[in-house]
């Protein structure tokens, strides 16, 4: 049981770190909280059995980094549209072609 919670805590912490780096950083909060819960369970059990808690501490460290990074990005990231030059170029070309096509069409407005 202790090993299972320890492994789950580590896996969730690593997942949280990965998500925190990716653009879907808001999702990192879910595995981070899970890692924290599993980590605490594992930590309490290890302390009871007088066993080493080093691995759990690594998991906690990863969680802190993931939570810190996600919180920072959530607060300070400004959503901006990327480079749209190519789209504008396509738009212009399409409009020019469309005007030519429209001249050939039989348009009767009611």
């Amino acid at each position: 049981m202790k090993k299972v919670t320890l492994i789950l805590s580590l896996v969730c912490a690593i997942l949280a770190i990965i998500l925190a780096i990716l653009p879907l950083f808001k999702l990192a909060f879910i595995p981070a909280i899970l890692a924290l819960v599993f980590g605490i369970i594992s930590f309490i059990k290890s302390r009871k059995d007088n066993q080493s808690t080093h691995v759990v501490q690594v998991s906690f460290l990863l969680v802190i980094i993931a939570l810190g990074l996600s919180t920072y990005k959530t607060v300070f990231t400004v959503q901006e549209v990327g480079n749209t030059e190519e789209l504008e170029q396509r738009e212009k070309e399409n409009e020019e072609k469309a005007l030519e096509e429209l001249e050939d069409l039989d348009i009767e407005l009611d």
Partner: protein
Amino acid sequence: MKHLFTTITVLLLSCASFAQNNNAFKAGEKLTFSAAYNMSGILTDIAEVKMETSAVNTSGTTLYRLKCSATTYSNFDSFFKIRDLYESYVNPKTVAPYLYQRDISEGGYYKFVKYKYSYKTNTVSSLIRKKSKNFASGFWDRNNTIKIKPGTRDIVSTLYKLRTLDIHKAPVGASDTFTVLFDNKEVKCSFKLLGKETINTAIGRKECYKIAINVTNNNVLKGSNANIIWLTADENKIPVYAKFKIAVGSGELKIKSATGLKN
């Protein structure tokens, strides 16, 4: 993900059976939305969607150009870059389309679709173009002539047509079905007026028509009554909020700004 923006556009479709003139929008209108993807209850903004109108002069007449574009935010560009463009050239009064162009670029996938409507023969000349290494031009083209039912539109013009309808005359619970040509197939799209609801938006607190959308013959949208659009209950009938459910999750579309409104 590939179908996300198609879905967003399809989602915004709805219809009623009254024909009338356009009193909802004019040339120069610009609506900006933010599209968010919902995963485990956490919403992540992924793209900006714009809907713009402009007047286009040909030698004989003036048409409206209805343009919808979707662009991913810069932090998503390196993962899944989307630059989609949907255009429809329509009759300013009846919003009947004459020319429709769809030019999409989604994470390396490119597709161009063009429909030329002929109302005398009830046909559409279609061109579908994809990137292909097997052709010297670098593109694979397929031309077709499709027989359509009277009243068949494209996605963009249907969305704008919806805004010109007298929704206030329709009773709560009323439903209707209409036909949209998408990927050379006629898709049946039904809608149901669920009632009125007042919601908070970026352009203020608005009383809205709440309309559920259901698409048949197509697997883009999922669930029944899971795809809902809120249109302001005024003359402009601006789409201010939408919720949609697709195969890979659900999402939202929220208005950010609206300028150049007719009323």
